[in-house]
């Protein structure tokens, strides 16, 4: 097991090398140079050139890449052009907001999506299934930012019940978390329903029935454990998506998370900050996937036996 975890963590290295290359590659195509943004349009030409040279802006891509990797190996990810502070200090300050947002959303997704998916599958084609699947269809196809705007209109502007921006209290999280969770919960509901329907047809469910097991026992002991495997993977993937995909939501609800930081940094051509944020996300997503795989092994003995001798 430990060997497996270590092996998985080692695969992070090539992933990160690739990501850093991609980010630098894409940033090199974007118009504008950091110095003119930092010093302003009116700054003298020589100052701009000098600052750009200092920042390594004129270096060829591969040189930039090599320099970045070399510095990163020494723990130096650079200073933000914008704030002149180490990039990770900014990320660490803003991370809790994004993490909370994604974490609450995944929890809400699971709480709504899984039970309703089970009910839908068990009561297939009955009215309650129709209601669940139609609602799921609607929420899955709504764009998140639009749903967020509608919720702000209703709950903040009209009813004045919940705040529309900021992160002060738990109330500030209600709307963004719901906005983030609604489409994912809809997807999880549909996935749970279909995997449940898949397991309901399995031979071992018939065996359980032939033993005289009650419907409840069949659902909870025999079907659920098998049906939840793909759902857990999907929840893990969704968590990764929510961490990064909160970009629009953090913007809509003006929350000071990593996503808003990233957007500002991209606008300012703050390459060190953008790269660091993306690296941070990549590590988070990889660790999430690793955790998902470990949970998998916990549930499915077939996978467990691959790792533990």
């Amino acid at each position, binding site marked *: 097991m430990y060997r497996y975890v270590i092996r998985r963590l080692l695969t992070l290295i090539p992933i990160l090398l690739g990501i850093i290359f991609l980010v630098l590659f894409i940033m090199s195509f974007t118009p504008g140079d950091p110095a003119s943004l930092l010093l302003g349009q009116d700054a003298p030409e020589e100052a701009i050139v000098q600052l750009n040279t200092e920042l390594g802006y004129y270096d060829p891509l591969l040189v930039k890449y090599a320099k970045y990797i070399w510095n990163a190996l020494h723990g130096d990810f650079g200073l933000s052009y914008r704030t002149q502070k180490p990039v990770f200090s900014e990320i660490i300050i803003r991370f809790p907001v994004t993490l909370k947002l994604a974490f609450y959303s995944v929890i809400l997704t699971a709480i709504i999506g899984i039970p309703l998916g089970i009910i839908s599958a068990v009561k297939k084609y009955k009215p309650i299934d129709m209601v669940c699947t139609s609602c799921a269809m609607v929420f899955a196809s709504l764009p998140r930012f639009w749903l967020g705007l509608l919720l702000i209109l209703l709950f903040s502007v009209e009813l004045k019940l919940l705040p529309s921006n900021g992160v002060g209290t738990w109330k500030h999280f209600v709307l963004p978390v719901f906005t983030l969770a609604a489409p994912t919960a809809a997807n999880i509901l549909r996935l749970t329903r279909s995997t449940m329907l898949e397991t309901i047809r*399995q*031979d*071992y469910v*018939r*065996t*359980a*029935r*032939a*033993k*005289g*097991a*009650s419907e409840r*026992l069949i659902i909870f*002991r*025999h079907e659920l*454990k*098998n049906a939840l495997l793909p759902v857990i993977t999907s929840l893990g993937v969704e968590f990764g998506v929510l961490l990064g995909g909160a970009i629009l939501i953090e913007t809509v609800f003006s929350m000071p998370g990593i996503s808003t930081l990233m957007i500002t940094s991209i606008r300012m051509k703050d390459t060190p900050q953008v790269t660091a944020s993306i690296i941070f996300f990549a590590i988070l997503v990889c660790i999430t996937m690793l955790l998902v795989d470990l949970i998998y092994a916990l*549930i*499915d*003995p*077939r996978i467990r*036996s691959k790792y533990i001798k």
Partner: protein
Amino acid sequence: MNNEIKNKLLEIRNLKVVYETDLDTIYAVNGISFELDKGQTLGIVGETGAGKTTTALSILRLLPQDIGKITEGNIIFEGEDLTLVSESMMRKIRGEKISMIFQDPMTSLNPVLSIERQLLEALELHNTQNRDKNQLKARVDEMLELVGIPKNRKHEYPHQFSGGMKQRVVIAMALACNPLLIIADEPTTALDVTIQAQVLSMMKELKEKLGMSMILITHDLGIVAETCDKVAVMYAGEIIESGSIEDIFGREKHHPYTVGLFGSIPNLEIETPRLSPIDGLMPDPTNLPSGCKFHPRCPEAMEICSEELPPIIEYGSHTIVCHKFKKEGGVNEKN
């Protein structure tokens, strides 16, 4: 006479089962009747799609929900009509009085539960003697030993067992509560030949040891000859010939379909370059032929076969449903 009634365990009368979907109605079982005494083994043989499994599933009322329906007939088990009892009563019967061994051991065990858990479940569900957990666990060990699986492997999961071992586990599970009747639905089809023999002789031995009755569904006549007391040959949802093992394997007269079944077994002593199958396919169960359902494939079909339902001809315990034997006497009964 009285004794005979007491000995009767299961009686099926004119059972009809259909599968109804939005598009079609499939006539899977069309009026079959048979009886089974305590301690007897009945073999049901026939091609794939003859309605053997459907018959077995209807006895336990495990037909696919919303689709499979028993439209007519009675299933009388220990004097009680199983088509009428409540679902909760049925749950008590399943696994405790009647249990079933399914065709494919690879898929009939739950992959995420340990063998012990799955065996224990059957015992817990029918714990009529109020045994405590340790006693139940001891029973699990006992059952595993009975089917020849070392008890220290009980914490393992289905994927760690071979096919033959899995089928042994399934058998142990079916026998755990000492049922009166075991329905074995092609228990050896998914296994290779050497394991087949092992599993079969084990089942036969256990059946005799524990004094159970058995319905053995198979398409292998060799297995029937070895294990059964009675045989019913099914075709297109009907029993077209039935009788004791001597009737089927010893007597001269047979339904042309049974003749075809025997004819399709290659003879080891005569060199045959080709197998001799029965020509044609099983009729479409949504649109069954008129008259005798076998007439389109029957080498001896007469004009009357497509027009009238064949009579039931009885020679003692041996029954043949065919026009061919009408003139030759036997007890006639209109179908």
